[in-house]
């Protein structure tokens, strides 16, 4: 399991710049990033190299911010990989709240999952041998 940061942002020009500006000033590197848009606001979700520092800096800058645990899955960067995992979870009745993915030189394709039943999902993903147990930094 890895830790993800969520930030509430108003849907206004310059808001993403102020969030990323805070991270830049602290020398924090983004590994994965997505915005869930909900009308006049959005939730930024991201995985960064220095999670606690990022949380502290954003909170001090006045953002509504939270840390929570998500699943990361490491797969080959090839067709059918997300399908295999989504099917395994779906067959067991586990709901996926959201997913986002990234690739990097260091890792294979990494997929971040937020599910409704974390413990059972961990077991399933271990069984099919895709759970990412390393650290992201």
């Amino acid at each position, binding site marked *: 399991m890895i830790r993800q940061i*969520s*930030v*509430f*942002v*108003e849907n206004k020009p310059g808001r993403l710049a102020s969030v990323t500006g805070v991270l830049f000033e602290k020398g924090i590197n983004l590994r994965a990033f997505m915005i*869930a*848009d*909900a*009308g*006049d*606001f*959005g*939730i930024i979700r991201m995985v960064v190299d220095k999670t606690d520092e990022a949380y502290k800096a954003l909170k001090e800058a*006045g*953002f*509504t*911010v*939270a840390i*929570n645990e998500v699943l990361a899955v490491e797969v080959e960067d090839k067709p059918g990989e997300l399908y295999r995992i989504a099917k395994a979870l779906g067959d067991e009745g586990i709901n996926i*709240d959201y997913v986002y993915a990234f690739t990097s030189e260091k890792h294979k394709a990494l997929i971040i999952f937020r599910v409704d039943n974390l413990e059972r999902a961990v077991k399933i993903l271990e069984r099919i041998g895709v759970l990412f147990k390393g650290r992201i930094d």
Partner: protein
Amino acid sequence: MFWNPSMERMPVEDLKEIQEKKLRALVNNVYNYSPFYKRKFKELGLHPSDIRGLEDLPKLPFTKKQDLRDNYPFGMFAVPISQIVRFHASSGTTGKPTLVGYTENDIRMWVESLCRGLVSCGVTHEDIVQIAYGYGLFTGGLGFHYAVEKIGATALPISTGNTARQIELMKDLGVTVIACTPSYMLYMAEYAEKMGTSIRETSLRIGIFGAEPWSEETRKRIEEKTGITAYDVYGTSELSGPLFTECTERNGLHIWADHFLVEVIDPKTGENVGEGEKGELVVTTLSKEAMPLIRWRTGDITILETEKCNCGRTHPRIMRILGRSDDMLIVRGVNVFPSQIEHVLMQIPELGEHYMIILDRVENLDVMTIQVELNQKVSIEKPGEILNLKRKVEERLKSVLGVHANVELVNPGTLQRFEGKAKRIIDRRKI
């Protein structure tokens, strides 16, 4: 044209005599029958016999909105409930509504006042009047309704909303007069164009607009767009809804002096301002039985004109309402106090204490946006939870204010902070 020619053209001295006689009766009546005024008179060491004529008016206490709240529901009444034939209510500042009761005579006087107004702006028994003010606890719809029927015109009690239907019926029935807010008229005119028609293609000839402040510029815009003649109407829920209108001279709204005594005061000192000077309108009801009001502070800023009007009416006139002496906002014709908004926001634990109220006019309709800061108690795990919070705040505001507000949740610390008196209202409407 006159509804009640002898009364409307009565010499000023005779009107004054009626007013003094009624004022003495009023003071006696409230002293004996209204628990609120009896207490108030005693506190001031005032006795009804101290009030002989109009020059004694400044001796009488003002009545304020807070008095109505403090004495909710029946403490302001001067008759037993059995004599009340109707209630109207407007939303209150902290959840409690402002309640007004009417006896049969009160309703009759209200209808009489508005009949005079309707006839003075040229409405006749041949007109079909589309009443697009809200019906119900709000006074606008029913107020117009009974006056329209009384003059023998035809009432179309369509109430507010459903603009396509409003335009369709206006065309199909050959409506000649409309009563609604001025901004709604403009909205309707644009809506008609989008429907591929125009108000100019209808039989509409007169509009009677009120329930919100408007300007000469808006009058021009309405008349240019629709080809009708636009008149101003004034009333407040506490006095009885719509009561006074402009006449065809369109140089102020006639206040029926046999039923209402008006003063214009400096809201800070409470002293009467000179003729032609701006100040707060203060009204004493001379005929009301159920809930008589002495020196009622309307909060509305206007100018009093006592010179006889070219139309022949001798009753004094007030000029167009220029603004408010307090922080009351009028949003889509609904009175909104910022304190009501604050009260709702402060009851929701996920919200911080900083907020802003922003008013815009979008396509001629008022839009109220409330920006409020979140606090750290909010869960941002899922956008759905924040959307639910936003919806909850909007629903609570709607139920207290009676009008919709868009809620924008923002991060803590992002809204402006104030040293001294907070300026939480940004009103960008051009009236």
